[in-house]
C-alpha cells in the first residue's frame, strides 16, 4: 500500500517534471523569438519604419486573412520536408546542409518517372513519381553519409558540394537531353500532364504537399523517439565512439538516416513538380532546401517541432511581399529577420536547465 502510494507520488512528480520539461521546450524558444522581434524592431526603427506597424503588416500578410493563411501554409509545406533532411541525420550528430540538392534530384527523378509512364493511370504515375523522387533524394544524401562513414569525408561540406553538382545536372538535363523542344524560352522537360498533377486540398489553394509533409514529420517523430532504430541513432548521436564499442551498426544507421532525410527532401522535389511546376526546369532550385536547414535548427531537430517552425517561417515569407509594398522595406528584410531569429534561438540553447522554474523536482 505504502509502495503503491509512493509510486503514485513519484509518477505525479515525474509527470510534473515532464510537463515542466515540455514547458521549457516551448517557453525558451518563445522568449528567443520575442527577443528576435525586439531586435528586428530596433533594426527597422533605424530605417524609420514603425516596428508596431511592421508587425501589424506582417501579421496581416502571414495570418491576418484566410488568403494569408493559405499563402503561409503553401510556403510551409515544402519546408517541413526539406527540414527533415537536416533534422533526421542530426539525430546522429551529423550536419547535412544539402537538402536543396536532394530536392532537385528528387524532382528530376520524379519527372523522369512520370515521362516514362505515358498513359498509365494517374495514381500509378503519382506513386511512381513519389517513389522515384524519394529514392533519388535519399541516395543523394546517403552518398554524403556514406562518404562520411566509409571515407571520412566531412558530410557538411560534401552535402553542400552535392547541391552545386545537382543544380548543374538539373540545368544540363533540362536544357539538353531532357529538353522539350517546344519549351522555347524557358527550357524545361515535357509536362507530366494535367491528369497527373496532385492538386489542392478541397476548399483551399493549399496543395496536398502540406498533408504529406505533416505525415512525414509525424512518422519521423515516431521513428526517432518511439523505435529501437531511433533510440540507437540517438545513442550514436550522443557518442559515436561509445556506440561503436557497444556494437551498434553505425554505418547502417548513418546510411539509413541520411537516406530517410534525403527521401523527405526528394519528396518535396516531387511535390514541387506534381503540384506546382508540372515539369522540371531550373526553377526547381529556388532555395527551399536552404530554408529547410533553418527550420530544422530552429526546431532543434525535433521532427514534430519542425511543423510549427515551418509555418512560422512560411508566414515570414508570406509577409515579405507585403512589407516591401506597404512599408518600402527591401526584400532582404525577411533574411535579416530570419538570421536574427536563428541567432537568438541558438543562443537560447544556453538557457536550458538554467531557469529554476523548469528544473526537475523529483519525488
Amino acid at each position, binding site marked *: 500500500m505504502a509502495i503503491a502510494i509512493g509510486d503514485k507520488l513519484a509518477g505525479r512528480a515525474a509527470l510534473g517534471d515532464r510537463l515542466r520539461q515540455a514547458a521549457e521546450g516551448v517557453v525558451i524558444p518563445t522568449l528567443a523569438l520575442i527577443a528576435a522581434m525586439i531586435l528586428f524592431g530596433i533594426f527597422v526603427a533605424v530605417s524609420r519604419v514603425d516596428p508596431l506597424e511592421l508587425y501589424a503588416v506582417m501579421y496581416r500578410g502571414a495570418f491576418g486573412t484566410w488568403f494569408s493563411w493559405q499563402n503561409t501554409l503553401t510556403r510551409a509545406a515544402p519546408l517541413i520536408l526539406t527540414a527533415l533532411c537536416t533534422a533526421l541525420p542530426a539525430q546522429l550528430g551529423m550536419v547535412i546542409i544539402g537538402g536543396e540538392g536532394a530536392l532537385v534530384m528528387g524532382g528530376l527523378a520524379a519527372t523522369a518517372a512520370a515521362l516514362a509512364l505515358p498513359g498509365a493511370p494517374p495514381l500509378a504515375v503519382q506513386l511512381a513519381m513519389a517513389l522515384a523522387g524519394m529514392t533519388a533524394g535519399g541516395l543523394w544524401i546517403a552518398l554524403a553519409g556514406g562518404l562520411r562513414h*566509409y571515407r571520412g569525408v566531412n558530410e557538411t561540406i560534401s552535402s553542400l558540394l552535392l547541391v552545386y*553538382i545537382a543544380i548543374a545536372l538539373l540545368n544540363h538535363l533540362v536544357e539538353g537531353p531532357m529538353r522539350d523542344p517546344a519549351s522555347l524560352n524557358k527550357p524545361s522537360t515535357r509536362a507530366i500532364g494535367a491528369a497527373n498533377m496532385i492538386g489542392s486540398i478541397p476548399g483551399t489553394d493549399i496543395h496536398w504537399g502540406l498533408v504529406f509533409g505533416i505525415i512525414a514529420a509525424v512518422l519521423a517523430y515516431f521513428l526517432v523517439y518511439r523505435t529501437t532504430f531511433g533510440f540507437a541513432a540517438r545513442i550514436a548521436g550522443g557518442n559515436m565512439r561509445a556506440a561503436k564499442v557497444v556494437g551498434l551498426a553505425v554505418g547502417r544507421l548513418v546510411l539509413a538516416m541520411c537516406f530517410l532525410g534525403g527521401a523527405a527532401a526528394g519528396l518535396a522535389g516531387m511535390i514541387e513538380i506534381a503540384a506546382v511546376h508540372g515539369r522540371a526546369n531550373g526553377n526547381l532550385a529556388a532555395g527551399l532546401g536552404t530554408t529547410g536547414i*533553418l527550420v530544422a*535548427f530552429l526546431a532543434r531537430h525535433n521532427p514534430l517541432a519542425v511543423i510549427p517552425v515551418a509555418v512560422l517561417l512560411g508566414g515570414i515569407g508570406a509577409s515579405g511581399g507585403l512589407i516591401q509594398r506597404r512599408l518600402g522595406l527591401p526584400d532582404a528584410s525577411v*533574411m535579416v529577420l530570419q538570421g*536574427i531569429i536563428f541567432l537568438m534561438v541558438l543562443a537560447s540553447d*544556453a538557457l536550458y536547465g538554467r531557469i529554476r522554474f523548469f528544473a526537475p523536482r523529483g519525488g
Partner: protein
Amino acid sequence: MAVAAAAGTALGWWGVPLGVVAGAVRVSTPFLFVSLGECLTERSGRINLGLEGTLVMGAMTGYGVSYLTGSPWLGVLAAGLVGAVFGATHAAFCSLPRVNDIAIGIALMLFGIGLAFYIGKPLIEPQAAMLPSINLGWWSSVPPLRDALRVNVLFLIGVVLAPALVWGLKNTRWGLILRTAGESADAALALGYSVNLIRLGATMAGGFLAGIGGSFLSLYYPGSWNERLSSGQGITAVALVIFARWDPMLCFWASILFGGAGAFGPALQSVGVTEGYYLFNAAPYILTLLIMIITCSPRRTLTGAPAELSITRS
C-alpha cells in the same frame, strides 16, 4: 604560338591554358583570403561556416566605403573591420554553453547576406573607385598575356600571407598558443590561457581576412556590387580549408586550383566548345569532392586536423 602569331592578337587554343591560368589568378583571391582566414579560425579549434555572410558583408561595405570616400583601400580596410566584427559575434555566441559553432555559422551566413542586401540596395547602381592592379607583363608583346599578368595587389598580399602564416603558426608564440587551443583546450587552460579569448582572436582575424576577400569581389573582380555577386565563394572556401588540410600554403594552391577550374568552362567556350557548359561550370565542385574522397580516410583522423574541431571529431 604560330597560330597565334598568324591571327595577330588571337591565341586560339593556346587561350585555354592561358585563360585557365589568368582565371586562376583573377578568381582565386576571394577563395584565398577566406580560406586563409578560416584556416586560422579552425586551427584554434572552431569552425566558422558564416564566412559566406562575412564575405558578402565585406563586399558591400568595401564598395560602399570606396564609393563614399573615393578610396578603395579605405573600403578594403572597412571590409576587414566589418569582417572582424562578424568574427567577434560568432565567437561571442560560441562561447555560450551548449551553443553549436556550425549552427551559429549558418545563422550568421544568413544574417550577413541579408544585412548586406538590406543595406546595399542603394549601392547597386553607383560606380565606386576600383582597386588598382600591377602590370607584371610589360615585357610581353602578346596582349592577352600582358593582361593575364595584370594582377591585383590583394592577390600578391595573399601570396605573401600564405607562407607567412605557415611560418607564424610554427615559429611564433602566438602560433603556438593558437595551435594549443586547437589541439587541446585543456592544455591551453593548464598553461593559463583563456581558450575563448584565443578563439575570439582567431575568429576575428579570420573574419577580417574574409571581409577583405569580399572587398576584392566588389572592388576588383568582377568589380561591382549586386546581390548575385557571390555564388557561394565564402562557403566553398571553407570547404577548401578541409581539403587543404589546415595548411595555409595548401590553401593557396587549393584556391588557385579552384579558380583555374572555374575559368575552364568559359575558356573552352571562347574557342568554340560550348557543349555541356553546365557540367564544365560545375567542375570546381566535382573536383573538390573527388579530391576529398581520394585524400580522406576513415581510419585515421585527418592529418593536420585540429583535434578540438567539432567537424573532425567522430
